[in-house]
């Protein structure tokens, strides 16, 4: 009984907090006028109750964006995006809630079932109105308390702008400046919300931070903004996304993630991206144009990106590391799966500025159906960067005769002491391997999943344990229908 009372109190408290932060009904019912203009941006900023500096920052970005052109160098094709025919702000609960799971696409439900996702979470992910997610809410609260004890800040970005303006002003745009690229600049002008994390000096964050626990912030919108700062000697592992496909009505997504690791700090950032990839005929699906960058600002710092990309119709994404501090280290582990008509152009940039910096890139691209899967990467060694080490391994696996895989590695070494290694392979799932697995009783699709999981093993091992198990299942599900 005590537990029940505690839960009820918790829910009351959380509900009260929401009110405190101004999620009142009039905001919920409102939406910015269609199209993009300075007025739209003022509207967004006002709705978020932002200070003047934040508005100025957005407006500067917007003015910059007007002078920029959409990049076309990626190996992806999509119809032109009409930026004036979109809504750039809608209040968190604006997206129509469904009354029950009966209204959800049965295909989506089938996938949830295969992933073994509990009913209550299915409702959350599918955007069904849930009266009160008792268990999850209490999880969130105990979680926040534990973090507060060690001084870790983990909150919605808009809350950080109000509550921790000094930190935000100091670090926002310091890794991905507002002038960086077309989509990052657009994001800077109109970003909706996202996560803010600050780990104080010497603190090892006591748990994996996951966007998943921010369920009350589930609708972060199409222009997510994330900023993570690991102060001197601290450590944090951050999980973004979810193996389950989420219902989402926005076609264009342009997120920005900035990571800052100060001296001796380490950030591990893991992503599972499984947005709607379009149907088997290539109709619909999310366009995902993301800018993710980490700055190893202090000596001996380390940033590690791990990503499992299975969703979206078009993916344009290059999580990168600026290795500024001496002896700093950047890592990029990636699995990108494309099926049907999906197009992926993804990779990383390792910019070696400091002495004795090292980086490691392991990329596994799997193409099936009629999809196109490109690895695009840059390893750059600047003049003063002595003793740089890089190891790059790009493996592509093709399933079926109509897909394609491409590898576009750029290497720039301006210091003769650099040692750079690049290995690349392209292979097919052989008829022999499939026959062998099936002769042991494994059905064709399961056999493909088994072989592909083996192919991805080096990367899957980098994921936090509970994530890795789900990711393995996801690999199989993503490739369904790829063998005849």
């Amino acid at each position, binding site marked *: 009984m005590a537990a029940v009372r505690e839960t009820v109190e918790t829910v009351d408290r959380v509900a009260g907090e929401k009110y405190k932060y101004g999620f009142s009904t009039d905001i919920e019912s409102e939406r910015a006028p269609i199209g993009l203009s300075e007025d739209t941006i003022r509207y967004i900023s006002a709705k978020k109750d932002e200070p003047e500096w934040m508005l100025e920052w957005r407006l500067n970005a917007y003015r910059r964006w007007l002078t920029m052109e959409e990049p076309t160098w990626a190996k992806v094709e999509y119809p032109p995006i009409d930026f004036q025919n979109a809504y750039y702000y809608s209040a968190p609960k604006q997206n129509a809630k469904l009354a029950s799971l009966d209204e959800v696409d049965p295909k989506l439900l089938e996938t949830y079932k295969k992933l073994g996702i509990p009913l209550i979470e299915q409702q959350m992910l599918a955007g069904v109105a849930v009266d009160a997610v008792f268990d999850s809410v209490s999880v969130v609260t105990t979680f926040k308390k534990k973090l507060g004890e060690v001084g870790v800040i983990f909150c919605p970005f808009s809350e950080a702008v109000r509550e921790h303006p000094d930190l935000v002003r100091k670090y926002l745009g310091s890794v991905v400046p507002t002038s960086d690229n077309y989509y990052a600049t657009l994001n800077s002008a109109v970003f909706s919300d996202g996560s803010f994390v600050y780990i104080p000096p010497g603190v090892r964050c006591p748990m994996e931070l996951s966007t998943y626990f921010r369920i009350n912030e589930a609708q972060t919108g199409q222009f997510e903004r994330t900023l993570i700062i690991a102060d001197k000697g601290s450590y944090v592992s951050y999980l973004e996304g979810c193996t389950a496909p989420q219902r989402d009505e926005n076609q264009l997504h342009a997120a920005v993630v900035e990571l800052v690791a100060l001296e001796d700090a380490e950030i591990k950032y893991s992503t599972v991206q499984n947005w709607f990839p379009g149907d088997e005929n290539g109709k619909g699906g999310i366009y995902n144009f993301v800018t993710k960058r980490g700055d190893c600002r202090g000596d001996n710092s380390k940033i590690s990106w791990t990503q499992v990309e299975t969703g979206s119709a078009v993916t344009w994404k290059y999580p990168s590391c600026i290795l500024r501090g001496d002896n700093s280290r950047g890592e990029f582990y990636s699995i990108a799966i494309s099926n049907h008509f999906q197009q992926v152009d993804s990779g990383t940039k390792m910019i070696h500025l400091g002495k004795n910096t090292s980086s490691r890139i392991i990329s596994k691209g799997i193409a099936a159906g009629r999809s196109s899967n490109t690895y695009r990467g840059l390893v750059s060694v600047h003049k003063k960067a002595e003793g740089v080490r890089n190891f790059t391994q790009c493996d592509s696996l093709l399933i079926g005769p109509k897909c394609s895989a491409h590898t576009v590695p750029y290497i720039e070494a301006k210091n003769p002491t650099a040692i750079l290694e690049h290995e690349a392979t392209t292979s097919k799932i052989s008829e022999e391997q499939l026959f062998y697995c099936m002769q*042991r009783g494994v059905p064709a699709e399961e056999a493909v999943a088994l072989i592909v999981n083996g192919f991805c093993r080096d990367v899957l091992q980098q994921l936090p344990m509970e994530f890795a198990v789900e990711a393995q299942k996801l690999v199989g599900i993503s490739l369904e229908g790829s063998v005849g």
Partner: protein
Amino acid sequence: MLEIKNLHVEVGGKEILKGIDLTVEAGKVHAIMGPNGSGKSTLSYLLSGREGYNVTKGSVTYKGRDLLAMSVDERASAGVFLAFQYPIEIPGVTTMTFLKTALNAQRKARGEDELDAPRFLKLVREKAKPLNVPDDMLKRALNVGFSGGEKKRAEILQMSLLEPSLAILDETDSGLDIDALKVVSEGVNALRSPDRAMIVITHYQRLLDHIVPDVVHVLSKGRIVRTGGKELAGELERTGYAEFAA
């Protein structure tokens, strides 16, 4: 158990098997011997359902069912096992994971419950011990970097774990030295049982000294040209296949 009637098989438009009749009863070990290119491997692939082997005439009945109508994995779950002459490498998939996936896929297909990790581990260790398969080998990716002997031991381990009703051993002795041959043969002999049939395909008599067959067939140019007892193998070793080649 298995009844093959007037079986004709084409590969790439060329007839390889030209009317095979063969009946294998439960509990029996049949050896199929023959020179290279006589159709031995074609028979093993055909029975296990590999693509590209077209039956133009004849029938194969297994436990009263039309074997040719079943998919590869259905045949496997129904108890047809092929020990490969050249086992295939599956990079990144540990032997342990592969064994568990295979066993549970078959159990699922048969409507049995899947084994959880502890029960599986106990079972696989029990089966691995007599075959000299150490834990270290179970943790390595299946057949990747395995020696010839390790590969064949892994094949027999799979057979022992999956407990097939009809085991087809395709040139299991190839690439084995005498010690490895002993271990593998002992493994196979331990699996002989009244409700299991085996078809042992081999070029040489050597294997049949260790796995003693009940019946020996000689396959030549796509036909079974002679059938006899185990002594036929010894006779062939002395005379060679010359008399069947013409």
